[in-house]
C-alpha cells in the first residue's frame, strides 16, 4: 500500500506548528516563578529515597568520580587538626609495639649508648629504692600513699613530658 502524500504533508505541518507553539509557550513561562510556587519539602517528602538509592549503580557512580581531584580539594591540615591524636596514641600498647616490631631495634640503635644505659640503670635503681623506702616509711607512719601529693601542682596538673621547665630557661632576676 502506497502512503497518502496529502496526509504526510498535513502531518509535517501539524508537527511544525506544534513545535512552534510549544517553544512559544516555554518562552512565555517564567520558570523561576513556577519553581518558587512548588513546595519542594512536600515534593521531597513524597519521594522514596531508599527506592531511589536502590536504583543507583554506585559502582558506576564511583568510577565517574575523579578521586585525585577530590583529594586535592581536601584541606588535610585542617582534617588532621581535628583528629585527637592523644586519644589514639593512648590506646596503643607501646611496650608490645617496641618488643614485637623492628621499632625496638631502631630505638636501640638511635638512642642507646653506653652512657645512656648506665644513666638509665643508676636512675631506675634509684627510683626503685626511693619507692621501697617511701613504702616502708608510709607503712610505719600509717599513711596511705594515695593520699600524698605526687608532685608540685604546676607539674603534675599537666602532661608529664611537657611539664618540666626546660633547663637554661630558668627565670633570672
Amino acid at each position, binding site marked *: 500500500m502506497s502512503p497518502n502524500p496529502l496526509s504526510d504533508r498535513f502531518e509535517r505541518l501539524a508537527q511544525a506548528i506544534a513545535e512552534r507553539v510549544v517553544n512559544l509557550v516555554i518562552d512565555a513561562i517564567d520558570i523561576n516563578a513556577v519553581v518558587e510556587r512548588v513546595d519542594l519539602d512536600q515534593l521531597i517528602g513524597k519521594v522514596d529515597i531508599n527506592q531511589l538509592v536502590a536504583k543507583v549503580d554506585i559502582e558506576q557512580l564511583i568510577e565517574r568520580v575523579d578521586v585525585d581531584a577530590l583529594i586535592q580539594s581536601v584541606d588535610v591540615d585542617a582534617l588532621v587538626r581535628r583528629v585527637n591524636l592523644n586519644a589514639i596514641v593512648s590506646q596503643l600498647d*607501646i*611496650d608490645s609495639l*617496641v*618488643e*614485637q*616490631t*623492628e*621499632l*625496638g*631495634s631502631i*630505638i*636501640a640503635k638511635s*638512642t*642507646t649508648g*653506653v652512657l*645512656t*644505659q*648506665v*644513666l*638509665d*640503670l*643508676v*636512675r*631506675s635503681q*634509684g*627510683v*626503685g*629504692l*626511693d*619507692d621501697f*623506702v*617511701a613504702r616502708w*616509711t608510709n607503712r610505719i*607512719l600509717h599513711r596511705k600513699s594515695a593520699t*600524698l*601529693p*605526687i*608532685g*608540685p*601542682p*604546676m*607539674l*603534675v596538673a599537666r602532661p*608529664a*613530658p611537657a*611539664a*618540666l*621547665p626546660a*633547663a*637554661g*630557661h*630558668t*627565670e*633570672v*632576676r
Partner: protein
Amino acid sequence: MAMLQPPPPEMTVGRQGHYAGVVSRLVAFGVDIGALWGLYTLGIYAVSLAIQLIGGKSVALSRHQIAGLITLVVWSFVYFAYQWALSGKTIGMALLGLQVVQANGDPIRVRQAITRTLVLPLSVAFLGLGLLMALVQKERRALHDLIAGTAVVYAWDARAARLRWLAQKDPVAPSTRAAIAPPLSGPT
C-alpha cells in the same frame, strides 16, 4: 652492655615532675660532694703550680689552712648556688635525673637558689636530720627546701628508659626472625 635487671614496674608511667625520693637525693648529694672536693683539689693544685711556675718558689698548702678553708666555703657556695640558679641541677642531680623547682613547680629563682645554698648546712648539720626530713615530709621536702620554698622532682623520662630497655631485650619480633632465618629442623 646489657642491663642485668629490667627497670622496675613503676617505670611504666612517666615520673617527670614527681617528687624525688630520699635515696636518689642522697646519692646525688654524695656525687656533688665528690665533684666539689675533686674540683677544689684540682683548682688548688693548678693555682699552686701556676705560682710555682711564675714565682719560681713552691707553695706549702698546709701553711694556709684558713685561706684554704675560706676558699673551700666560697667555692662550695658558688658550686651549688650557680648551678641551681642556672638550671636547677647540680652535677650529681643531673646524673640522677633530678631538678630543683619552686614549691609550685615553676623554675627556681636566683634568690631561692642562694637561700637554698646558704641554709643547706643546716640540713647537713645534726647528723643530716634536715636532709632526712625529706623521708617523712609529705612532699619529700628537706629542711632547706622548706626554708627556700623549693622542691626536688624527677626530671628524667623513666618511661623512655623502660622502652629503651625493652628495645634492647628483644628488638626483633619472633615472626620477623623466623622469616629471615627459618629454624633448622631434623637431621641435616
